[in-house]
Every structure is written in structure tokens, then in C-alpha cells.
């Protein structure tokens, strides 16, 4: 049994090397879109969306397995250097080298079970452990609030950009109108500055 578990694990690790973790995806993205988008970098073997269990602190992300590690690295470098957008303008996606823990249900590292022990209440470590538990929750709430803050900032950015874009678009419409409909350059100058 062991050898095959080892082998499985090794094979999985190899797969991880070839996989790109794509983040900040538009939730409306489909498999096909991503595939087309990343096909320019190489051969997309498999796309796995990271499941979201309805918890906060989760972003829409996907694990894209490429043909080989080199392609994966290329994607990562390219996306790091240039803002790459997949069906979500103008928010670029982010790409990272995948790690094994990013895969839901990754195979276990062969090495035996996890030992556990119930602490006795009289054990001096009990108090400390309780403190640790409190801290854990505190950390959780901190992380959660940071995430909320991040979402808020994103929302603001989004709104701001939307405004800018709308304004620009209005100007364009205006120009369009005046240039096409009315050849008056003077009027154009007057209005397009607004």
C-alpha cells in the first residue's frame, strides 16, 4: 500500500509544479474562456475551479494545469509583468505557482497518522491551550475584517473607475455627435473640454 501512496503523492506533486493558481477571476468565467485565454501560453490540460464553500475570505480562483512546468512559469511571469485580463475589464487576474495545499483533496503525504491527545483540565498546559484557542479566534476575526476592508477598497476602486469610464464615454459620445452630425469645430472644442 505504501509504495503506491508514495507514488501517488509524487505524481501529484509533479502536477502541482505544472499548475498555475489563477486568482481574481470574474465569477462569470467559464472553463472555456480560461482555456482559450491560456492556450496561447501552451497546452491547458485541466482546469479546476477552487470550490467555495460559502465562507468568507474566499475569492474566485482556479487551478489551471498546463502541459509542463515551463509553460506554467511563463504564464506566471507574463501575468506578473503585464496586466492580463480575462473577461473582466479592467481588473487583471493574478497568477501564482500552485502549491499542494491549494488543491482541495490533495493526497496525503505518506507518513502516518496525526497524533492527538485530550488535555486534562489539571494539566498546566490546559490554560495555555485555552489561551491559544482564544487567540485563534481572534486571528480569524482579524483576517476576516481585513478581507472586508479589502472588499470595500475594491468596491470603491470599482466605482471610481466606473465613474471615470462613464465620463470618458460621455465625452466620446459628445464628440461623436458633433463631429459626425455637426462639422462645427468650434462647437467641438467648446463641448469636448467639458
Amino acid at each position, binding site marked *: 500500500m505504501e509504495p503506491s501512496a508514495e507514488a501517488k503523492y509524487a505524481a501529484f506533486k509533479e502536477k502541482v509544479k505544472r499548475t498555475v493558481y489563477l486568482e481574481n477571476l470574474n465569477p462569470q468565467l467559464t472553463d472555456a474562456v480560461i482555456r482559450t485565454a491560456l492556450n496561447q501560453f501552451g497546452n491547458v490540460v485541466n482546469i479546476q475551479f477552487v470550490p467555495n464553500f460559502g465562507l468568507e475570505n474566499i475569492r474566485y480562483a482556479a487551478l489551471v494545469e498546463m502541459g509542463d512546468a515551463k509553460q506554467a512559469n511563463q504564464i506566471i511571469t507574463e501575468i506578473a509583468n503585464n496586466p492580463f485580463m480575462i473577461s473582466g475589464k479592467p481588473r487583471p487576474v493574478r497568477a501564482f505557482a500552485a502549491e499542494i495545499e491549494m488543491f482541495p483533496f490533495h493526497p496525503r503525504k505518506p507518513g502516518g497518522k496525526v497524533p492527538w491527545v485530550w488535555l486534562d483540565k489539571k494539566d498546566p498546559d490546559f490554560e*495555555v491551550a485555552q489561551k491559544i484557542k482564544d487567540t485563534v479566534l481572534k486571528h480569524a476575526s482579524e483576517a476576516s475584517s481585513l478581507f472586508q*476592508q479589502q472588499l470595500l477598497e475594491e468596491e470603491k476602486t470599482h466605482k471610481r473607475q466606473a465613474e471615470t469610464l462613464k465620463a470618458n464615454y460621455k465625452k466620446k459620445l459628445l464628440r461623436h455627435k458633433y463631429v459626425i452630425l455637426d462639422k462645427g469645430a468650434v462647437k467641438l472644442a467648446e463641448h469636448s473640454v467639458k
Partner: protein
Amino acid sequence: MGVDCLEKEGRFYESFTYDGIEYTLYDCVYMFKEGEPEPYIGKLIGIWETADRTKKVNVQWFFRPSEILKWLGDRTPMQKEIFLATGEGIGLSNVNALEAIAGKCYVVCTSEDRRNRQPSEEETKLADYIFYRAFDVGRCTLLDNIGDSVGGLAVKYVFNREESKNMNGLQTLGSSKVDVVSNTIACKGKNKLLIPNSSEEFELLETYGHPVKSVVIKDVKGVSVESGWIPGESSDYTSGNNSSVFALTDDQKQECASGQKVKSSEVKSMMDGVKKVTNSKSRVKKKLSSDDMQDNPTKKARICNSTKPCDDKISNSAKSVLIQGDKCAFAPKEETKSKDKHLSLNRGVIGAKKGGLKDRPIGILKAGPSNKAKKVVTFNDMDAKDFIKSANHVKRTSGFVKGSELKSTSKERVHDNTRKFSNNAMSKMCAEEMDNKEMEQKIASRSNIDKGKWWTTTNKMRNASKGTTLLLWNLDPKYTSEDVKEVIDEALQTSCIAIMLPRTKISSPHSGQALLKFNNTETTERVLRKLSEGCLMLPNGRPLVATVSPPLSSAEGQCTYFGHIVIDGIRLQGDARDAVSTSHCSQPNTIEYEMAMEWCLLQMQFDRCWENLYKLHKEDMRRLKANLKSK
């Protein structure tokens, strides 16, 4: 300016003193450029004086990550990492007037090349910068391995200077070759040397220090020569051990003999000095430890910003030393800054803290001057950390009073929206009891159309009826779902379904979570109760924490996603129609590009925030776990 030594012929120098700071060949220096926010960092590879008495230095450059971002790609540089220039071409090195030097820079080479003396952890911590890679200016590539010469510079001058591992001559006590005996107590890139002079008082001689530079320090006990920078030996130091030793190459020793500030009379007093040094050290050490806590503010204020030389000359007690275990000099630096910047905010904050957070009225949240608080998160470690501190502040659960890091200098960043959110959160937090440890979770799920044999488990989870799911915290992130299931089933006699939550870019690197589903509500409640009242300990000091998780729905809901802007208009519609999949790289001449850059920037800022948050968490945990007697 004093020129200390002359080589045999010509006007080349091996060291010089400028502006009170002593520099030796192959030292790293800051070069200030008008208009640049940050100084350049270079390595002195030549020092000379021209015929008309102008002094020149030849400097081989180090690149900051920001200067070679384009060729770094995805590889994030380490903190404080810089890159040595190599290859041929423009940008390798330059000759500059000596007066352009702005200070000494402490750069440690952390390359694992066996020719490199591995720096100690302390050394690395206290260094201004580290490097282990080179950047070829001709080919514009990053080189991980260092060959025999880096841009013409022999490797031995690239790596950390070899310590006296090779120098047997220095190992004997009382060797006449030794010129100076001193303790070095470093303060972030600076050496303070205590030099015994003939009157046996200790004077502080400041040198700025690349290790292994100007001075030779003997090992007091004369047993073995320790290599390295005194801070590296802080553990020895605190245990009352001896000072570390710097070794000089032969030429430098000659230099020292001829040109150092140390007078020859001091050599004689060396022996006595050695003994004195030991005494003073223990004295200093005691003084330090007692003064440490009180002096913290002063000390912090004195931590030199590495871009400008500190010029406090302190007599022997060297109060500004902060080499006390893990409270490394860096943490205070940041805290100092934030403290200075936001002193006025602290008052309100401190009041709140003492009151006990459970009862903290919302009013205090508003107390901080909002003009300062409304600062946008800037691309700055400092602010990220402050933000985290304020976030901590806002969301602290009742009664839990923490150690100094978060408390002492946290400032309130009152953001309108944060306030609103925190108000809600606070009231919710207040409502919870310590026993239950309930947490609100937002439901934002989305559905997937996916195949995979693991999907059935996930589906089962999703279809869980109300009250049968729990969230398990504080797991080792390397565990798998099977591990978790085994542990829970055995420890609690249940048969559950466990799903280890996959890691994301914003999840904690040192703590993982899992979802548990039980068969019915009774079991769930039992488990929850047992886990909160008792302590189920996993290895490495991890007690498990369970909280109630709201039922997960596989509804069509979506993760909150911002960033996609659609305008009903001719232009964009046309594009959308034509494109099969709208993926592209944005070109720099469009509005889109600017907006994309904004997103990138925002993302990077928050990355920093997350990094810092988790760093703090790690520290918290580490400190708590240190109290565990058994692990």
C-alpha cells in the same frame, strides 16, 4: 577628510574616513543622488586620488528590486534583498567623486555558496540589506549562482569576508598581531566599539560596519575564534560569554597597524583591556536588560535609519543596543515610526484598551482624528502594519489582552466604512459568550459545474442541513481532509465528513481550517461543546478550535467581485460581440491600462497587509506556544 593609509606606491587607498565614517575597500556604501528618493547602494571597488587631489571612488552597483522589476518576473525578492551587478556594460559600476558617498551600508551576503561565510541569523536580521543573487547588466538576467568573479570583482570580495576560520594566527591570546581589543555592539548597521585606552576607560569609537572590516577583536577566552558580527553572538553576549572576533586579512592588519585611529599604546593595554572588556560586558548586559524595558522608547528613537548615520556617541553602556533575544531591532523601528506619526491617536486608543474591549463604546472608535485616519493604505510596510493594528483594535474579542506588539503603538484608523462594519461586528462580538465562540459567517457561495470524484463529498457538505456543520480552526495547513477526519472520528467517536479548506493567497500560511459535517445536530453540538470545554491537542501545540458554521448553500450566489465595468455603449458592445473570449493584455496607452494598474497596486498593498497580518499572528502564536511545557 582623513586619508588613513597609503599603499606602497601610487595614490590608491584601501580605506579612508569621510565625514567621521570609516570606509574600507569592498565596503558597501550609499550614494545619494539628487532627486532620487532612495540612495543607490554600491560596493567600493576602488579608491584613489587623482593628480589634482580630487578623490574618486569606483563603485560597483547593487540593484534594488524596484530597479530590475521587469526582469524579476514573478520572483518576489526577499525582504531587504538587493542584487549585485555583474556582466559587462552600463550600470555595472561607475566612478564617482568620493563626496557623493552618503553613508555606509551593511550588506550581508546570504548566498549558500560554500565559499561564502554564512552569516548568522542575527547578522542577517541586523543587516541593512542582503544579497545572494546577481544581475547581469549586459544580458539583463538574474543570476542565481555566483561564478568566479562578479563583474570583474573577485569572489572573495563578493562574499562575506572570511573570518579567522582560516587564520590560525589570531587564535592565540596575547598575540602581538592583534591590534585592537574591543567589544562591538552593533546597532543596525553600525558598530560601536569599546576601546580600552590606556586609562582603562572605555571610549566608544564608532565605525560603521561591514563585518570583518576594520578591527580585530580577540576572543577573550582565547579558545576559539568566533566568526562574525557581534550581534550574531548576542546569545553569547547575554550569557556573559566573550566577544566575537573579527579577523582581518593580512593587508588590512597592516593598515590597522599603520593607520587606524587606535593608538599603539592601546595595544599594550590590550591584555588588561581584555579583562576589562569581560567585566564591562556583563555590566553592560545587566544594564541593558534592566534598562531595556524602560529605555525602549529612547532606544527605539535612536535606532538609526540606515540611510543616515547616527551620530550619537554613547559611553560604555551603549544603551541603544537592542540585541535582546528575539525582540529584534527591526520591530521597534517600525513601531517608532508609527508612534511618532500618530501620537495623538494613541491617547484615545489607550483609554479604550484599558476599558476592556467588550464594553468599549463605539464612540471611542470615532475619537481618533479622522483626518489622519483616512489615509489610504499606501504601499508601505509601515502603514500596512498600522492598518492591521487598527483592524486588530476594532475586532478584538472581549477580554483578551495581548502582548506588547499590537497594543503599544496601534493606532486607530477610522474609516467610515470600517466603522460601520466594525460597529456591526462589535455588537455581534459583544453578544457572543466566550464559551460558545460563535462567529458570524457571511454566506457567499457560488455554484460550480465541475466533475471530480471529490465533488460528491463537497456536495454532501453543501446539502448539510442546518446545524450540522462546524468549522475547525488551527490545523496544520499541511493536513489533508483524511487526516482531519481520522482525528475527529477517533477523538470524538463520530463519523464525520471533513473537508480541509484549500489554501488561497490570502489564507494563513501557518494555520488551516476544515469543514466538518456530522450526522445530526446532537452530535454536532456535542462535538462543539467538547472541543470548547476541553482541549484537543494536536502536535506542535495546536489545540483545535471549533465554531459553528452556517449552512452552506449551493445557491447561485457569487463571491463578491468588483472590477468588471460594463458600459452600454457602442464602443464596448462592439468589442464584446466580436470577441469570443475577452482576454488580453492591456497596452500602456489606454485608460484600461491605468485602471488595471490601479487594481494591481491595490492588490499589492493588500498583499502586504496580509503578509504583515500573518506575521503578527505567527508571532502571537509563537509566544503563546512557548509557554507550553509539553508539545
